[in-house]
């Protein structure tokens, strides 16, 4: 659905996006993670046809970014929620949505239906005649999402959709994104909230001008240091440690009464480890599985650790 090959954007001598190669499938929610200035917004703007690319290629569906004729078709396929919501504050919520709906040649009746559907879904229907300027930040964000969806786009670009929102409003927006995911829309989500990416995204990409990593959140976390089994014992002694190290040489750490063991397949390996501990006279109190978090992965790539 979205394909980029060596996509590059330079502003004078500064490279904002460097040789980005990416494929996003239809119906996929793709999270783009990176610090401020990493090139997330620039990428979205290039893919949405708002700014030109310096080099490389990119396609939305079957249409080429950078080809003027294709750009008109691309603009009909995509919905954009920019970082600054950019609502007309003197117009009502209904008027804001209706204005955008008209650019896509949606009939008046259809516009009315869609506006009602989205405003009701986002809990804004009762405020439909209220000026957008009187809305809270969360309400504005929801209204801007509805605006991006008014023409029923296949692809949605969301640039920091929950930035500056209170936890309740952020949850409403996230729930709405999950609802959109169920509708099989392709969603390109820029965020610096790792928990958000973990909850919403099928795959995430970590960018810092260059694309540093791209995979599912699970694979990324496992790729960092695999899975660890943490076993808490009543007491620990050398016999127990040696018994476990015999099974997993060089993979065992000891901390207080805990054994932290690197495993690749916990379901297969854990029973043998536990049996070895018990045979060595150990009494197991607790067994836990620990993986690296997305934050660990993010920091590793972004800091270059």
């Amino acid at each position, binding site marked *: 659905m979205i394909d980029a090959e060596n996509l590059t954007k330079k502003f004078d001598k500064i490279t904002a996006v460097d040789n980005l190669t990416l494929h996003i499938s239809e119906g996929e929610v793709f999270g783009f993670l990176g610090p401020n200035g990493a090139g997330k917004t620039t990428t979205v*703007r290039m893919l949405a046809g708002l700014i030109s690319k310096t080099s490389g290629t990119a396609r939305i569906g079957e249409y080429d970014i950078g080809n003027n004729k294709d750009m008109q078709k691309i603009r009909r396929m995509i919905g954009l929620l920019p970082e600054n919501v950019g609502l007309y504050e*003197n117009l009502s919520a209904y008027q804001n949505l209706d204005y955008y709906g008209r650019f*896509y040649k949606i009939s008046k009746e259809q516009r009315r239906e869609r506006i009602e559907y989205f405003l009701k879904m986002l809990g804004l229907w009762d405020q439909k005649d209220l000026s957008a300027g009187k809305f809270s930040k969360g309400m504005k964000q929801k209204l801007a999402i509805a605006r991006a969806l008014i023409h029923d786009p296949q692809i949605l670009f969301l640039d920091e959709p929950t930035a500056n929102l209170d936890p309740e409003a952020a949850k409403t927006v996230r729930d709405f994104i999950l609802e959109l995911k169920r509708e099989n829309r392709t969603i390109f989500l820029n965020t610096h909230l790792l928990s958000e990416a973990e909850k919403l995204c099928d795959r995430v990409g970590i960018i810092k001008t260059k694309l540093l990593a791209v995979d599912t959140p699970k694979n990324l976390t496992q790729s960092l240091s695999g899975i660890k089994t943490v076993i808490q014992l009543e007491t620990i002694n050398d016999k127990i440690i040696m018994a476990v190290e015999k099974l997993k040489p060089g993979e065992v750490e000891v901390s207080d009464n805990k054994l932290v063991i690197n495993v690749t397949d916990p379901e297969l390996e854990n029973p043998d480890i536990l049996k070895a501990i018990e045979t060595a006279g150990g009494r197991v109190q607790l067994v836990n599985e620990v993986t690296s978090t997305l934050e660990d992965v993010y920091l590793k790539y972004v800091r270059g650790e």
Partner: protein
Amino acid sequence: MDFENAWNVVSKDFAIFKKKRSIIYSLTILPAAIGIAFPIILILIKNLSQSSYVALLPAFNALLFWFIILAAIIPVAVASYSIVGEKLEKTLEPLLATPLTDGEIILGKTLSAFIPSILATYLGAAVFMIFSDIITFQQLGYILYPNWTAAAFLLVAAPLACIFGTEFNMLVSIRVNDPRTAQNYGGALYLPLLVVFILGEAGTIPLDTKTILIFSGILLVVAIIIFYINKSLFQREEIITKYT
């Protein structure tokens, strides 16, 4: 160019004007005041004989020229804010992501400033002509307006001056990022029109129908040139990266 899209921009701007009535008042107050003030000034010239009134008749047309100047000045407020306003309110990025083209945006914004400005000019001119006719009917027994010179002034020159003023102010609006700067630059365009008025009053050029039509032709050409300049200056990328 899809005129429906351009008209959509106009409808949205009109909906905003409707909510912000002060914009409408600011557009109409000056032409209405001038429409009333000019005839009153003539009335205040006391003890004029009938022949003196006849001698004053060219002054009526000269005063009517002010409505051409007004037609160019009135759009300053709206046109200079047209693009700057969208930049300041950060509304351009989502708008530019729609299928709306640059030409449609420029045309829509031009019409949003032109239509209320020319209507305000006509309001002032109508007030002026009604008051003038009352005076000439009382003093000379006939009415002065409508006449062909007034038609050339108001139906040809004034709309073209208004389009010229709108386009010029939009050019400024595209290039700057502050509405005050835009208005200060935009206000400067009244100077060339004032020069024409002064040359007319000094007798260097006659302010008759023929001159006005030639003058209108020049305004039309300049307005078209500025429209295309505006289109080429409306750089999406620059606007997006600098102003959003």
